[in-house]
């Protein structure tokens, strides 16, 4: 089926989702209201680690308009927020977060009390009157610190995780050169422009609990809620409206989601909760916070013999829905696009007294690419080999594909990279950039006294991990088409992407297609939108379903027109004789009208394998030695996506991801005081990139390695923009300031930059 037509794929079609959004008719969580609804306000712990001795809510309860106040005692029957089924791990279960803190609080922002009021202002006033009495406990603000006690008799080191293959000791013993580095990535998060929101509604007649404001993985969260609340699958519904960005952190199941649902049922009224920005900065998942002690062994030609990494993962106060996913992904992606014959990684998975961590766009990859590419830069300097040449020598080549990493540990998933030609992408990218000219120009500028430099980050991404997803497509009697999916839209263009794939396979106008997503009551399954899965998994499901529907339509048309099916084609919603614009024809609408069962199909895409897109990031920066501020003059992304559905939307994903990465590399950091007080709780302290300080990101998209694991060859694009940014920027700064290995920590804030310059 490699011959499937792709006429419509890649085209820059405008988005189906835009018309309401540009008119101000978007329906985001805060825009959703139900009659007679209550408003929930959470009282959060002001302490980073403490034992709760008592909670006094009397004064708050006395305010008029307060309907109910809950502490953990009022919901003692609820289990902690569970892991997703595929992430469940017995050893990590004691580290889950309760819906409201019971006897201990473990970060500033930990939910302690829930207030339900007639009015959000009243709820907020009452929250100020709640008194939480505590005995403070030792606060741990870094995964470097000696572990403490998560609970009585339970260490805050939740686990030691390992990934190993090959003979690492032999590799280091045989090495010509060994390099060791000490590297850190700061705490960042997605920080979508829409804060979280949840509205719980209880339909007493049908005994159905409904959650509005759901996002990302509605079906998986439904399944978790089914387990947690002990209800039947059809008694809980999740509904997704417009979502103001996700980036991995929005749409996970959080305590507030459970609270609005349970309160809706127990208080008999709908309950609305909208997070404020300050809460968001201390309660929504954060990530990236790792400290690596890494070393690499190479022979005299710079060929990698082995790699060893010991790192400390700062998990924050609890283990959330993903379990140990992020450190695990860090470990299995650390070797990246290179041949590394022997490898050992050891992760100290440690709880600290900071906001819990979980997945943020390219989880474990942004971090590991930074670490790996810092090693390559350091090696190039030490060995006196050009940094591009050193990378080229070590890249996995296309004749080694598929390329497997088989880990020794039982239960650790092996990784098989499907395909790719990394040296080819490198050559294409260098050509595209006119690398040699660019380097010569930077050299001239440096000679003239400017602090300018370039850097590079090579990476592999994983996308479209199975196991399966499906879709239903139907044509109505007017010829309008509906695609029903269990996917989710976080603003990435999901509807257009699905419609474009369907239109391509079926032979219809994409503007006549409506795409449904994020409604668990309409379709029993759905993979959601996470880990760059939407286009690959749901897109492939839509493609196979559209092909099935096409076959069905052609068979029916063959009968109706009395012509052989293989002589027919579908163009613009009409079945015609192939390549004939006149002659017998019948519209899909007519077929739907005449066929008793109408015209519809359901089909599935199943795969055990992931699709691995790959890319290279290049940065050019200029450092101001006076202020320490760093200007990203140029940023270039070369990316192989296998098969592109819509070039304009893919550029949007790559550029958006890249600018987020620049934020993490230079500006953004959730800083905590030694007492665990979060210091960045507004946009004034947590500085996401603004228009006046970002470059125009240049993209070179290739389709050289279509994935063999789906019919169209699709690979994901959601994380390719951010993956190598920290690595490329770090390399560029090193070169700009003329200090090899200068950058060991992200973000490189002006203060850190000044310090490096002053110490040199």
């Amino acid at each position: 089926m490699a011959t499937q037509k792709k006429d419509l794929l890649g085209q820059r079609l405008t988005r189906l989702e835009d018309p309401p959004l540009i008119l101000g008719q978007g329906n985001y969580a805060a825009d959703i209201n139900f009659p007679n609804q209550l408003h929930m306000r959470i009282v959060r712990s002001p302490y980073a680690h403490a034992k709760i001795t008592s909670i006094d809510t009397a004064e708050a309860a006395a305010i008029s308009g307060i309907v109910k106040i809950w502490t953990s005692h009022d919901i003692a029957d609820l289990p902690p927020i569970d892991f997703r089924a595929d992430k469940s791990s017995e050893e990590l279960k004691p580290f889950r977060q309760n819906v409201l803190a019971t006897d201990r609080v473990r970060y500033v922002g930990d939910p302690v009390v829930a207030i339900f009021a007639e009015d959000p202002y009243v709820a907020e006033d009452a929250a100020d009157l709640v008194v939480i009495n505590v005995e403070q406990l030792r606060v741990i603000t870094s995964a470097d610190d000696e572990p403490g006690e998560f609970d009585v008799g339970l260490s805050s080191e939740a686990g030691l995780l390992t990934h190993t293959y090959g003979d690492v000791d032999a590799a280091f013993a045989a090495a010509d050169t060994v390099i060791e580095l000490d590297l850190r990535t700061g705490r960042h998060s997605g920080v979508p422009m829409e804060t979280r929101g949840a509205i719980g509604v209880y339909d007493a007649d049908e005994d159905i609990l409904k959650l509005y404001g759901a996002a990302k993985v509605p079906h998986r969260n439904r399944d978790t809620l089914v387990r947690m609340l002990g209800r039947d699958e059809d008694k809980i519904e999740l509904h997704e409206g417009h979502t103001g960005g996700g980036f991995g952190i929005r749409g996970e199941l959080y305590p507030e989601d459970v609270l609005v649902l349970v309160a809706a049922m127990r208080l008999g009224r709908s309950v609305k909760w909208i997070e404020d920005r300050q809460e968001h900065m201390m309660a929504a998942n954060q990530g990236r916070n790792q400290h690596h002690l890494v070393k690499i062994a190479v022979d005299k030609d710079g060929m990698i013999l082995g790699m060893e990494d010991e790192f400390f993962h700062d998990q924050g106060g609890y283990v959330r829905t993903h379990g140990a996913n992020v450190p695990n992904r860090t470990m299995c992606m650390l070797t990246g696009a290179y041949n590394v014959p022997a490898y050992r990684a050891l992760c100290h998975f440690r709880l600290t007294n900071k906001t819990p961590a979980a997945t943020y766009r390219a989880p474990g990859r942004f971090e590991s690419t930074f670490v790996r590419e810092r090693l390559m830069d350091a090696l190039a300097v030490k060995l006196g080999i050009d940094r591009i040449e050193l990378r080229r020598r070590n890249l996995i080549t296309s004749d080694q594909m598929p390329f497997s990493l088989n880990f020794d540990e039982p239960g650790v998933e092996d990784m098989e990279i499907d395909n790719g030609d990394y040296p080819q992408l490198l050559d294409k990218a260098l050509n595209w950039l006119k690398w040699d000219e660019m380097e010569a120009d930077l050299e001239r500028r440096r000679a003239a006294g400017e602090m300018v430099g370039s850097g590079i980050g090579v990476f592999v991404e994983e996308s479209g991990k199975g196991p399966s997803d499906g879709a239903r497509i139907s044509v109505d009697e007017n010829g309008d088409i509906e695609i029903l999916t269990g996917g989710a839209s976080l603003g990435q263009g999901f509807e257009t992407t699905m419609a474009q794939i369907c239109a391509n396979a079926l032979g219809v106008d994409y503007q006549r297609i409506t795409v449904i997503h994020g409604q668990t009551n309409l379709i029993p399954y759905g993979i959601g939108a996470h880990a760059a899965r939407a286009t690959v998994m749901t897109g492939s499901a839509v493609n196979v379903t559209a092909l099935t529907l096409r076959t069905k339509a052609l068979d029916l048309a063959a009968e109706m027109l009395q012509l052989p099916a293989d002589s027919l084609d579908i163009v613009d919603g009409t079945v015609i004789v192939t390549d004939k614009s006149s002659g017998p024809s019948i519209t899909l609408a007519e077929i739907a009208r005449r066929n008793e069962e109408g015209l519809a199909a359901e089909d599935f895409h199943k795969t055990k394998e992931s699709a691995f897109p790959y890319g290279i990031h290049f940065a050019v920066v200029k450092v101001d030695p006076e202020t320490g501020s760093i200007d990203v003059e140029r940023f270039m992304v070369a990316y192989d996506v296998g098969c592109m559905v819509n070039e304009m939307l893919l550029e949007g994903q790559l550029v958006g991801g890249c600018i987020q990465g620049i934020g993490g590399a230079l500006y953004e950091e959730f800083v905590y005081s030694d007492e665990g007080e979060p210091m960045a709780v507004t946009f004034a302290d947590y500085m996401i990139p603004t228009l006046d300080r970002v470059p125009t990101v240049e993209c070179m998209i290739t389709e050289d390695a279509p994935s063999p694991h789906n019919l169209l060859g699709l690979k994901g694009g959601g994380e390719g923009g951010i993956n190598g940014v920290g690595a490329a920027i770090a390399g560029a700064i090193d070169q700009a300031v003329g200090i090899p290995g200068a950058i060991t920590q992200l973000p490189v804030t002006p203060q850190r930059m000044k310090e490096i310059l002053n110490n040199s």
Partner: protein
Amino acid sequence: MTKRSHISLSVNGDEYETLCEPDQSLVDVLRNELELTGTKEGCSTGDCGACSIRLDGDLVCSCLVLAVEAEGKEIETIEGMAPKSDELHPLQRHFLEINGLQCGICTPGILIAAKALLEKNSDPTETEIRFWLAGNLCRCTGYDKIIRSVQAAAEEMRKG
């Protein structure tokens, strides 16, 4: 409960009368009393620009304005941007054509701010656009297509 104040405002040419709390922000009144939810609230501290509106022509963050301060003033929000129900403002059209939005939550504020810019300066340079919109955060697009959309709209509007 505090005494509610009575205010009258003109929003997109329509007259509204409503009650509000003395400390209630204008964005809250627009959204929750007048049910004009096109204006978004991303931070409530004047840092994100999602709540951008025009107050007697001036571009302001409506989260920083008290509703009572808007008494008798003319307000322009995203709901009033398209000249007719079946016709888009050039900015809206180019945002749609060039993909100047993804999740769309920053878009109402950005469109309002960009419109204010183009009314003051029909031919802004890229740098002028960047600085004018620097107070409007967008986490999805990486901004580039926003700039291209504004430039394309400006060009079309100049040609009339």
